[in-house]
Structure formats: C-alpha cells, structure tokens
C-alpha cells in the first residue's frame, strides 16, 4: 500500500486529506470524530474577534440535485464561527494535544487592520496549531463587513494583510483565495508578494441556488427574503480545477504550494487536484453529504491508484498533469478522432442520436432496429455523444492514424503537429517553417 503521508508547507499529516474550514470543523466534538474516521488534518472553522458573529436562524443551505436527489451543489449563507474565541482556542489546543500526528490549521478572519491580526495570532500559536489559513474567500455576510472576499478581491489588501501576518507569527501561512474574481493569478501573486507559504483554493462561488416559485424569493429563504451564498460541492470542481491549474502553470507562481479545494468527493477528484498542482486537498461538502467515513474510500482509492502507477509518495503525483495544461491555440489541429459505438454495450436509448441530430452534427444514424452507428463522414469528434450516453465506455473517441483519410474532409490525417498559430485561416498566422 502506497505511503500517503503528506507534508505541506512543513505541516505533516498521515494523508493528504484535510477537512476544509467549514461547519464540520467548528468544534472539538466534530473534529475528534473526523480524526477517528481517519482524516489527515483539519482547517478549523474560521475564528474572528469577539463578540462572535451571529447566524441566521432559518435555513443556511440550499442544494442542487442530480438524479435520485444526489447532491451536486450546496450553497451556504453561514458565517464564520459563532462561538466565543476562547472556547475555540481551548478546544483546538485539546484536540491538537490528543492528535499530535494530525494537521491542525486554524482559519482566521479579522478586520482589515493590523491590530486585530497582531492580537489573534499569538493566541492561535499558543494552542500548538500547525499553521493558519487566512480566509479571504467567504463571499457572503462577512464580505459586507469588509472581510472575506472583500479582501480577497483586492490583491493589494491580500498582500498587505499577508505581510502583517507573516510579521506576527512563526506559523506557516496559507492564503485562501476567492474564485469570485476575473483572474485567479492576481490574488495568488499578491499572496506570494506578501510572503504567504501557500495558497488554498477555491473558496465558495457567489450563488443563488433556486427560487421559491410560490414566495418568489431566492432560496435558502429567510422570512421571505434570500441573500446570495457561497456555492460548493461536486458542481464547482471544474471551476476549481481550472483555477488551481492556472496558478500551477504560471511560471511566476510555479513554486507556490497549493492546497486544492472545491468539490473533492472521491479519491479520484483528489488525485486530479494533486496532478494539477495541489500538494494536498481540503474537503467539505462530501463530508457534509455523506459523513466523515468517506475518507476511508479516499485513502484506499488513492493508495490503490498510486500502487498501480508505481508511485511511492504523494509528491510523485503532484504537478504530474501540469505540463499538459496548455492554451487552446497550442492544441494539435491535425489530431483527428471519430466516435465509436460499442454495439455490445449499447442499450439503444438513442440519447446520442437525439443529441447529435438535434443539437450537433447529424453524425449518428439510427436504423429500424434501433441500432445506432456513427457516420464518420459527418463526425467532428465533439464528444457530446460520449457525454450523454448513460453507459460507461459504450461510446469512445478513437484517434485516426496518420495517413488515413478522414471521410469528413477527404483529406489524409497529417502526421505532424500543427496548431492555430500557423493555420491558414488565422489572419495572424505566422508562416509555417
């Protein structure tokens, strides 16, 4: 079994699966249960300055479902911890004492002034915590008060606060980034300039999950009104992966450690984040949906995968996919694939046909016996049929061999790589060598 021990900015944990700063890590009771279940570490739910914030007393969450009410996306309007600072600090100290091998990182959010940071950091340090995470991400509630995403959306503030924090503590400092911004590299660069040891991303995305069509109010609805919340869960994973990759492949940020967050639900999700540059991952919604036990699947799954790949430590997976993340204009336009339907696996639902016929390229034929087949002379290999097929691996994309004739264009498949920058249709093309 592969060794999953992880070291992230000097913080050791038995595996790279941490619980993100969120309701599951709000108090000792939950965190003890998490550690007993096998989580490698936690980021304690964000502490602030007393008096503690108050939460709404109506619904805090809204959800988006897939088939069979499988939770795909969760939105929340909960704020940072609503418990007294001293209570949290005491519990952090107790838990860390009892679980010295687990990572204990404390999330912080205080007003955007130096004094509160100088006040709270020694208190956290005294607990024996391994590090701090600066919450510059929460997009709701706290941001209205000039904290959370209100800081995270202004790179100068990120840099300033990070610098204050680094000056006031010996602990590693992780800066948590908001995705509610145009270019994720800007806040990451600011964190780097401020001296951050790492960035973590993404925090939640501004969202309204649904509208109550009887009350005509956004959901979750509090006494007839709703406010935007922060969106997370499996639905945000693609957004998070892209942002992680944007940072990981930026030459100026290549050495910035990343803690990957955003819809991690299975070992596979975690492995994807790690391959795109994350040193570890943080999980919240999956635990909130299924309970802490899911970490056991993450541990066994990642371990089995690493064994299959001959990897002996998580570090060997980190950034493995980063070199293959590129820009569209670098994609090989001479690569030609065709969809192929495995007739043995096909259950004849016809969804590929409906999708292709109605909305794409009319490249699938349907005969009287409901046998569906690809018309290679129409297929542009868009992949929509693969995506809508309910049977795994029934439709695949098969690359054409160089030299073969593409029946759609009548031209031979070119053996060499050629991208848009040299394409004759590109008015700005540079001449091919």
């Amino acid at each position, binding site marked *: 079994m592969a060794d999953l021990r992880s070291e992230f900015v000097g913080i050791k944990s038995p595996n790279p699966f941490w619980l993100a700063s969120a309701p599951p890590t709000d108090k000792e009771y939950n965190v003890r249960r998490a550690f007993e279940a096998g989580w490698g570490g936690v980021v304690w739910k964000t502490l602030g300055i007393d008096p503690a914030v108050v939460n709404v007393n109506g619904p805090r969450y809204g959800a988006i479902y897939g*088939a*069979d*009410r499988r939770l795909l996306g969760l939105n929340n309007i909960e704020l940072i911890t609503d418990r007294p600072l001293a209570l949290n600090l005491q519990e952090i100290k107790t838990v860390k004492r009892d679980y010295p091998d687990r990572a204990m990182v404390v999330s912080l959010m205080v007003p955007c002034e130096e004094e509160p940071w100088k006040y709270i950091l020694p208190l956290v340090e005294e607990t024996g915590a391994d590090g701090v995470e600066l919450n510059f991400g929460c997009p709701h509630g706290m941001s209205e008060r000039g904290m959370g995403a209100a800081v995270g959306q202004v790179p100068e503030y990120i840099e300033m606060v990070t610098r204050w924090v680094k000056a006031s503590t010996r602990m590693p400092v992780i800066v948590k980034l908001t995705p509610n911004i145009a270019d994720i590299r800007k806040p990451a660069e600011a964190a780097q300039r401020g001296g951050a040891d790492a960035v973590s991303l993404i925090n939640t995305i501004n969202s309204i999950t649904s509208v109550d069509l009887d009350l005509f109010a956004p959901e979750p609805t509090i006494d007839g009104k709703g406010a935007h919340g922060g969106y997370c869960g499996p639905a945000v994973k693609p957004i998070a992966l892209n942002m992680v990759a944007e940072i990981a492949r930026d030459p100026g940020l290549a050495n910035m450690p990343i803690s990957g967050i955003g819809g991690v639900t299975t070992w596979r999700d975690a492995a994807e984040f790690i391959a795109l540059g994350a040193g570890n991952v943080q999980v919240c919604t999956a635990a909130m949906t299924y309970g802490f036990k899911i970490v056991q699947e993450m541990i066994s799954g990642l371990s089995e995968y690493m064994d299959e790949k001959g990897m002996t430590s998580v570090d060997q997976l980190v950034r493995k996919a980063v070199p293959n993340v590129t820009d569209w204009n670098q994609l090989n336009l001479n690569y030609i694939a065709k969809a192929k339907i495995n007739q043995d696996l096909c*259950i*004849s*639902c*016809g*969804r590929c*046909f*409906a999708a292709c*016929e109605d909305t794409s390229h009319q490249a699938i034929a*349907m005969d009287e016996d*409901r046998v569906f087949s690809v018309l290679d002379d129409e297929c542009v290999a868009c992949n929509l049929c693969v995506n809508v097929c*309910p*049977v795994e691996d029934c439709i695949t994309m098969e690359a054409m061999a160089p030299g073969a004739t593409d029946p759609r264009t009548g031209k031979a498949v070119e053996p060499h790589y050629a991208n848009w920058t040299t394409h004759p249709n590109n008015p700005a093309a540079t001449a091919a060598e």
Partner: protein
Amino acid sequence: MSQKMFEPGITAGRLEASAYADQFSDLHPPLDPHEALVAADRCYFCHDAPCITACPTDIDIPLFIRQIATGTPDAAAKTILSQNIMGGMCARVCPTEQLCEQACVREIAEGKPVKIGELQRFATDHLQQQGKHPFERAAPTGKRVAVVGAGPAGLSCAHRLAMMGHDVVVHDARPKPGGLNEYGIATYKTPNGFAQAEVDWLMQIGGITMQTGSALGAEITLEGLKADYDAVFLGMGLGGVNALGATGEDKDGVLDAVDFIADLRQAGDVAQVPIGRDVVVIGGGMTAIDAAVQAKLLGALNVTLVYRRGRDRMNASVFEQDLAASKGVRIVNQAVPVAVHGNGAVREIEFEYVDADMQGTGQMLRLAADQVFKAIGQTLQGDALPALEGRKIKVDDAGRTSVDGVWAGGDCASGGDDLTVTAVAEGRDAAMDIHMTLVG
C-alpha cells in the same frame, strides 16, 4: 388457522374473517410521492423511446415520467390520458412486463426496467382522485353514435366521440358499465371500486348516455341501431365460453372461470363467496391465473392450474405465472381433460398427458376437485353480425367492419391481442375514423 380450511366440498368462510381484506388488497400498493420520484429519476428520456413503440396506445412515456420527475403529475396524467383514456385501469392490469417495461432500455442494461406501470398509476391516480377531468367536449355536431358494450373498447370509443362533440349512447347487457374492467379482472388488481370510479370520471366529458341492461340481440339489434344512429361501434367483447370437450363436464361444480371472477368482483363480502377445498382451473391465460390465484386467496387448500401446452406457450405472462406459483397454485402442463368424475357433482377430474404435438401419451392424471373452473377461451356470441374473420368480427385498421356505418373493436374484433390496452386503442382509433366519416 381456520379448521374450515380442510373441510371438503364447497363452502364459504374458509379463512379467518379478518384475513380476507389482506388477501384481496392491492397487488401493487400505489407508489408514494417519494417512491415515484426515485422511480421517475431512472428514466433516460430515450429518443423515439422503445417503450412508446411497445405501448398499444402509444403513450408518450418518457414525457409523462419527466413530468412526474419535475413535480407536475397532473400534466403527466394528461399526457397519458390523451392517448389512453383508461390509463388508470391499464396502469393496474396491463402486462407491462411484456409491453413497455420489457422494451425499457434499463431492462436491457440492468434487468430492471423503469416502473412505468406504477408511475402511470401514480400520475393518473393523482389527477383522478381530485375528480379533475382534463378534457373538454367540442361544440355539438348533432351526430349520434351508438356504442355496444361499455367495456374498455366501447368506453374509449365513446369518450373520444363525445370529446369530438358527438352524442353517444352506450348500450351494455350487464347491470353495470365497465365490461371486463368491472366483471373480468381479479379483485386484487383493481380494488376499492376503481372500475366504476373510472367510468364515472370518464363520463364527466359529457354527451354520453349509459344504457345498461341493453343487450344486442335482445333489447337492441344492429339493424335497429343502424336505423337510429349515424354510426355504430360494436365493442361487446366475447360473451361465450369454450367447452372442455370432456365427458361429464355438465356435472355440478364445473363452472366458467369468468363467472367465478365476476361473482367475486360483485360480492359485497368476499368471505361469503364459497370455494372448494380442491380446485382445478383449466387454461393458460390471464383468466385462468386470475381464477386460480383468487381460489387460493379464498382459502382453497389445493389449487391446480392445468394447461394443455408447455409453460412457454401460456398466454399468461411469466409475471402472472410466478404470481400464481407464489400464492401456492400448482401449475401442471401438457395435460388435457378427458373426463369429469362424480355422482352429480364433480369429485375428480381426469387428464391425459400429451406431448409437444398434443398427441396423447396414454399417461393419465386424476385430480381431486370440488370445483373445476374452465378458462380455455371465450367466443363471440350473436348473429346478424358483420362478416367474421375466424371467430371474430373482421375489421380493417380503422375498425371498419363489412357493414357500412358499423365499426368494431376490442375482443370481439379481429386484430390485436385480447388486452384492455389494445381494446382502448381500437376504440379510440375507431372513434377518430367515425368522426372523420361523420364530419369529413
């Protein structure tokens, strides 16, 4: 356990009084809203879906399931009922495992189809239990149509004609409308007076007059109807029962299964229906199964269903065969009745085993029997009917008979299986052709 269980002869109350309600309760309890959503989520919304093709009434199944999944069961019901006005009954009695659910791609993928029949019931019940009738009658055309038979074919035809604005008079020989829905289907498939409730709901369209106790060949004649109406639809089903061809079949206790089923349906209290300790049912179709299962449910100790061919040739679906087996009915294949023994009343029935070619083997089987139910098929009754094809009224695709102005559908007409859903389709399609003919 009641000691009456072991008592020979034909007697009522073989079970504890409290047992009957359970025995004859709904075969498939209705889906609750949560179960319906879970079931609906499994539908793939197939293109040109095979389930639609498999449905004799062409209900747009993926659409109605999507309407359930999105929280609009009444819209789902309208989708169903616009194709099949007896969608509620069909949801209960259709052999879905041989029709839509057999064609479901998830049957191919996982051996577990979407529960189409139960979802159809969920939607139609949701609408009908509110007393809502989703269709409106068109402006009166002044045309009058006679429908003979208030079963699935006749009612389907009548509803569609009434919806088109025609005035319809439905004649039925029995005291209640509904046909086989009321008299010919096992009690546990349609409990709680559903058949009559469905007729009442269907009649809300308006423009339909129901004349019960009005039999073709007695109170009415085809000639008379032709003279009095602009068109006639014949949907009176099959009134006669085939004979066994065994010696002694006139003995007491040898009965038609359809009568037994009808009596049970009409009994105010099923506990009062007498049943033999040893019951033999002869036949291999749905009627045979309905009779055998219900004999068992009434407390018959030994129920044997005997069919002359192999199991694979039985008209009853595998689901029905398994249902019978699960209730303790013994199924004997490849045996034909040769003699009914007994002094006045049946005591035993004797069979000869036959080979696959129906040739006698000389090997005999004698079964004790207090009652023998014959379920070996029904026949068309009546004379002065349009031309026949085989033993049924010959019709074309539109339901036209050999006689101008006379259409036919359902079990009495050629074409299609003898299923409720097929009868509904034929009644509906004949109505559309009558409409086109009358208003052209």
